[in-house]
């Protein structure tokens, strides 16, 4: 029988593996030699001019690898066509990828990375690992766009912050994400409810919702940390930048800050009252989200603005998805109620080792010009970091209209944080949040578990910390 033959092969493998264990000291020294031999080359350059600010060579190829997620890659194709038109003879090679880290790892190690990467998705490359190998993109935002305006002046405030590490603009995050508490405007109107502005009001609404057989919130096991995002956003609103800097710099006892504690306590009250739909820790997150958009078992859902696009096929007709700022603890928080957690996502990076660094920057410049940015907003129903690309009717999307409104209401009061993505702690935090939302732990346990995760990163000398001021 087949299995018998395999058995022999496996025994052979075991013996071989044992032999390998003996050979290890020799192999170790060999392996540490492997993978060396890097060379820096910026590629050939062309003449620098107003239409070619980075001096891209004539008839060059721009090699871009784009994360193919919710936004697809056709918006980069659009920019690539414009680039090919402006630089005749040049070609833009746009390749999709759903697994940036695994796919590009050998190219980074081998010293031939692409010229432009959209380092996004669940399998993005951790920034602290490639930071030293990336170009500073300040030259891109200081250049003029295709319409002749300086790019820096056409962007929303604070959008460069998420891509700035230790003072270096290593990534340009292209798509603007607004984090909010989303709800069905039609559902609220039909029941005569208004959006709660404080956690006390939220608790009171929970009772009314329960009377109608609805829960306040729903969560899915892979997305339990959406409530962490909501809690942090609310705590920063309450306690100001003090809260944010404590978390960002992994300070001891940062999770015990009074503002965070008061938000956690408010959430615990809601959890214990049973206003969360039970069973979320065993529900796949899109199934949980459909319980909000389709069967409307829950009223609110905290998420980023991708939610409309993500649930497009499973949203009840006439849902009128609208966003509101997250509740604050008191009626007069340190930052105004309208202040907003918004961060630009889809980080575009240009590796210094690329063959055509100037080409990578040039493609980015095209993407930041008005035409390409408007095309993105129109086809993806999400704003880019470029201002004034969304018309008043939001191309027919209520969520897009409310994003624009949330952004203009917030004005300068826009904040974000990086520590979760930067140190890759989301996976560990998910476990803690699932337990908390399930009602199986309390504020003290939640705080100490989250603190343990932060402390672990802080005390790990092999992880490069980035100080946030």
């Amino acid at each position, binding site marked *: *029988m087949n*299995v018998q033959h395999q058995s022999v092969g*496996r025994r052979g*493998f*075991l013996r*071989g*593996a*044992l*032999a*390998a*264990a003996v*050979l*290890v000291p*020799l*192999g*170790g*020294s*060999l*392996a*540490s030699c*492997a*993978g*060396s*031999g*890097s060379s820096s080359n910026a590629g050939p350059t062309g003449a620098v001019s107003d239409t070619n600010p980075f001096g891209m060579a004539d008839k060059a190829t721009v090699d871009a690898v784009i994360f193919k997620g919710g936004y697809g890659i056709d918006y980069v194709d659009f920019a690539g066509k414009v680039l090919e038109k402006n630089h005749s003879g040049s070609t833009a090679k746009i390749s999709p990828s759903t697994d940036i*880290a*695994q796919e590009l*790892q050998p190219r*980074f*190690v*081998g*010293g031939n990375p692409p010229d432009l990467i959209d380092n996004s998705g*669940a*399998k993005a*490359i951790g920034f*602290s*690992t*490639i930071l030293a*190998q990336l170009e500073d993109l300040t030259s891109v935002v200081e250049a003029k766009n295709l319409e002749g305006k300086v790019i820096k002046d056409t962007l929303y405030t604070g959008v460069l912050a998420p891509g700035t590490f230790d003072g270096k603009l290593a990534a340009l995050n292209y798509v603007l994400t607004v984090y909010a508490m989303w709800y069905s405007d039609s559902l609220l109107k039909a029941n005569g409810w208004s959006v709660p502005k404080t956690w006390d009001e939220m608790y009171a609404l929970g009772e009314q919702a329960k009377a109608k057989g609805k829960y306040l919130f729903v969560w899915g*096991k*892979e997305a339990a940390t959406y409530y962490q995002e909501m809690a942090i956003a609310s705590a920063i609103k309450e306690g100001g930048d003090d809260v944010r800097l404590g978390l960002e710099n992994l300070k001891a006892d940062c999770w015990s800050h009074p503002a965070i504690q008061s938000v956690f306590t408010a959430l615990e009250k809601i959890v214990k009252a049973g206003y969360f*739909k*039970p*069973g*979320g*820790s*065993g*529900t*796949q997150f899109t199934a949980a989200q459909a*319980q909000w958009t389709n069967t409307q078992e829950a009223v609110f859902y905290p998420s980023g603005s991708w939610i409309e696009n993500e649930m497009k096929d499973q949203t009840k007709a006439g849902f009128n998805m609208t966003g509101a700022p997250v509740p604050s603890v008191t009626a007069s928080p340190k930052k105004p109620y309208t202040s907003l957690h918004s961060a630009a996502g889809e980080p575009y990076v240009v590796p210094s080792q690329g063959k055509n660094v100037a080409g990578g920057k040039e493609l980015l410049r095209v993407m930041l010009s008005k035409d390409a940015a408007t095309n993105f907003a129109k086809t993806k129903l999400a704003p880019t970091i470029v201002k004034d690309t969304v018309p008043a009717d939001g191309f027919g999307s209520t969520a897009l209209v409310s994003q624009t409104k949330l952004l203009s209401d917030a004005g300068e009061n826009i904040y974000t944080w990086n520590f979760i993505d930067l*140190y*890759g702690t989301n*996976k*560990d935090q*998910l*476990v803690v949040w*699932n*337990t908390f939302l*399930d009602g199986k732990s309390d504020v003290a346990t939640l705080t100490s578990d989250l603190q343990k995760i932060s402390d672990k990163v802080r005390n790990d000398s*092999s992880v490069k910390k980035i100080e946030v001021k």
Partner: protein
Amino acid sequence: MKRRRKPLTWDKISFFAVFLGLPLAIYLLFVIWPFVQAFGYSLTDWSGFSPTQNFIGLQNYTKIFTDDIFMKAMGNNVLLVICLPIITIILSLILASLVTVGGSSKGQIKGLRNSSFYRVVSFFPYTIPAIAIGIMWGQIYDPSGGLLNGLLRGAGLNQFKDFAWLGDKNTAMVATMFVIVWGFVGFYMVLFVAGIKGIPAELFEAARIDGAGRFRTAVSITIPLIRDNIQTAYIYMGILALDAFVYMAALNSGGGPDNSTLVMSQQLFFTAFSKGQFGLASAMGVVLALATLIFSGLVFVVNRLTGGDKDVSL
């Protein structure tokens, strides 16, 4: 007297080259060399994306063994290695006995009625890819819309309304193990059926004449005679339990409630690709490989000690 070595002929050399040299070269290049490389990287602080790395000795190993999450994952793997093979093998042995020798106690030795039908049906799960099994059972276990809770509530057990089988740390591991066992019982049943079919029917008939019941026959005749098959099955199932990545990732991609279903291979993956610590991840891989070796060694030793080397084969 000295035996003279026969001269090497072209025929002989080409035979060696094709049947010995080539496989050995492929084996060295694709099995041994990556293994050696992984060990090399495990002694460095390689991030995975830099062309160079620093040698840091055994630091990664000390870090692994003081990391509570990795130790928890290792504990889960140990739990799987202990439970999975035993449950799967016992179940499939019972099924195999039923469909081969468990039938009527009169006349010819045969299985239950319609046994060939059961044999085919129980093999079905094995033909489904592991990832599909994971996704399917993920839906069955869904708290609000899942089949399992629907059936339980239909049976009047209302306390299972919205019960998260994969979200409760007391049930997540058991529910996951059930899925894996479900997927493999049919395969091992077929393996054991083949083994039992190789035993001459006279032996069973003799045992029956001596007054042995079905259980006694299974313990005293069947198991000793298909011991090699059981050992093979045990090692295969154990190696699967040490990996278990696909099932765990499909059912609880994040490691489950309180990391109760997190396994070493998942932690290795997270460390490498989301934390960018390839050196540390390589060290985890080495630990995993050594654990597999130790496990196989243990099974051989236990089999030897319990008398498996005595020749009982026919």
